[in-house]
């Protein structure tokens, strides 16, 4: 279980997160929804240890993560724009995390991950030669291959066209369920959040305004902004 406990984060003296609070239970996927610039990505980066947390705490199963360096947190983060390594081929990208775990025989796990995202046989392709949708799948495979205990996806469908998004939305949900992933999916699109997550968390100006399922939020919106944003 991940607990984000009232954290404050500032970047270049500008407060981005203010008392942000969120709990994600085991096996649960939370859809973090909010307008652009509301601090969604920063929240993920704080959990990953890529930005400094000024106050508050982030705990995994009760133990604080704040003093654990990024590479030892055992998390998965799929970046907006994917951030695939251009100097490595598909298999080397997907196998990067396994290599860091000193896995001596990553081959089968790489193939399995590629198969899962529908890219069986893509091992030796150059990253540059992939289409947008294929890059998205490789990025997902790279994030999930090391089997992280907690997964964060930052606008996973952001850069794709509408038809592809609709298709991948369902596919992603299936993969997340099948792998029993615990994690957060960031998006600014309500339908995407509903399709991929068990529960929604609404973020505005660095604060989590409300959490719950879509019907719970629609039934009892915390304020006018929430009502306008989700309906």
């Amino acid at each position: 279980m991940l607990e984000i406990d009232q954290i404050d984060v500032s970047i270049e003296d500008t407060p981005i997160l203010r008392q942000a609070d969120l709990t994600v239970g085991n096996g649960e996927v939370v859809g973090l929804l909010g307008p652009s610039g509301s601090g969604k990505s920063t929240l993920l980066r704080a959990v990953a240890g890529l930005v400094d947390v000024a106050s508050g705490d982030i705990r995994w199963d009760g133990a604080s993560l704040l003093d654990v360096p990024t590479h030892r947190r055992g998390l998965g983060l799929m970046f907006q724009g994917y951030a695939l390594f251009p100097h490595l081929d598909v298999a080397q990208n997907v196998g990067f995390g396994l290599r860091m775990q000193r896995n001596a025989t990553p081959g089968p796990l790489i193939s399995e991950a590629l198969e899962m995202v529908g890219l069986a046989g893509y091992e030796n392709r150059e990253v540059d030669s992939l289409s947008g949708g294929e890059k998205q799948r490789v990025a997902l495979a790279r994030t999930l291959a090391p089997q992280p205990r907690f997964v964060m996806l930052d606008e996973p469908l952001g850069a794709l066209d509408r038809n592809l998004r609709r298709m991948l939305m369902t596919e992603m949900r299936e993969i997340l369920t099948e792998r029993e992933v615990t994690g957060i999916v960031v998006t600014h699109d309500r339908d995407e959040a509903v399709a991929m997550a068990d529960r929604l968390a609404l973020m505005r100006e660095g604060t989590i305004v409300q959490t719950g399922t879509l019907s719970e939020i629609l039934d009892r919106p915390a304020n006018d902004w929430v009502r306008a944003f989700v309906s």
Partner: protein
Amino acid sequence: MDTGDGRLRRSIRWGWVGVATVPALFVGYFFAYPVVRILDVGLSELSIGASGLQARLLRVGWFTLWQASLSTVLTLLAATPLTWAVSSYEFKGRRLATALVAVPFVLPTVVVGTAFLSLGFVQSIGSILAAHVFFNVAVVVRTVSSVWSRIDPRLIEAGRVLGAGPWQTFRLVTLPLLRPAIAAASSIVFLFTFTSFGVVLILGGFRFATLEVEIYRQAVNLFDLPLAASLAIVQLIGVTTALYVYSRYQESRSASWEVAGARLLPRPRGAMRWLVGSVVIASLTVLMAPLISLFSDSLGRGFYTGLFGSDAVVGSPIASVGNSLRFAAIATLISTIVGLMAAAAISARRGTLSKWFDMLLMLPLGTSAVTIGFGFIVALDWPVDLRASFWLIPIAHALVAVPFVVRTTLPTLRSIRQEMRDAAAVLGASPWRVWRQIDLPIVSRAAMVGSGFAFVVSLGEFGATSFVARPNIHTVPTMIFRLLGRPGEVSFGMAMALSVLLAAITAGVVMWLDRARVGELGRF
């Protein structure tokens, strides 16, 4: 309609040939033809196989190779801390630091040599290596940091999230992404140190002769042209190899990795502030020390007034300044005209022909200046004997400078969209009018920068000049070398004073260029 179109196309093609002819003839006669003559003389010498020739070529070639390789490795090592600092962080004085680092690179080699002597360096291999590092650090810092600072930070973060520690991330992500830039910078540094002449001659003397210095000694001092020619062949092989490696890396797919634009770098915090600060201050102090020493030592005992005196052996030292400015003006004019015509010809067509033409024009820059000067005295007795002509000096300088003009103007010319020219043509402009009304105004700023580079190149040129200048005509660099060659504190003082003058003029032109902000220094 059909015939009219055909006629237009034909006239454009003939126009292209006309524009391309001038630079082709220029480079062909003053560069390609002399190189062929050198090959001819050198190969027949090699086929005769004079006793001990092979051993001699091997010895000089081997020394040149290992000093260039060692210089390259040392330059990479010396440049690493500063490259890291300016690539990773934004800090006060970062722009100044990157500007200062380029100063040694634009200085004439004789000035660098004199500065190291003023710092107390004696003729030794250590001095040569130190001066080479000093001279070339800018190439590495500029080339590598321009890629490093543009690496998408998310790639580094992705490595960290996937479980790689800071050092592993550097080794597995950053370093492979930098490899093409490091290879390109290394091959340029290798090329410069492999063909280094002024620095080696001043800080090494004939005891530490590289191919370049040995060619000079054999041709000018001992007048053994066949031996010099066979040395030049070894030299050409080395240079061509380095250029080939460089172009391979330029063309490889990896050259297009740096897709991200310039990004905001973070400010260093905590202990990093101290580390960045000390790296920058230490690097700049070491880089500036020779220049500060040169300047302060030049101030003693009326060395500057001594320049205005007349001397029985070398004439009036200050007269060399007038000569240099005159030669530089002519060389700038020639190289600007030839370079612009070449750039216009290259940009007008895409395809193998124009690519080869581009390569041909770049060759004089890659080849050593000594080979150019040597080629002149070997070859330019046909069809008329030009070898004693006043024009040889500015022509040699222009030959070295043409690639600079082409490099600075070509990107701008290529950025002009064909539709603009077509629109002008539809409105009734002839091809020549199109060029005057569209291309020339757009390219003129870049051309100014190219001309400025040509001027600086000519002012500092030493290798070719030392071959083709008659003994009674001195440019500033050859005068400095003459003064250094004479014993006595006053001669050395005057050499330092003249070096300061040359450095000041060079720095003035370069600062003016930097304000024009078109060409990027150190991208060659």
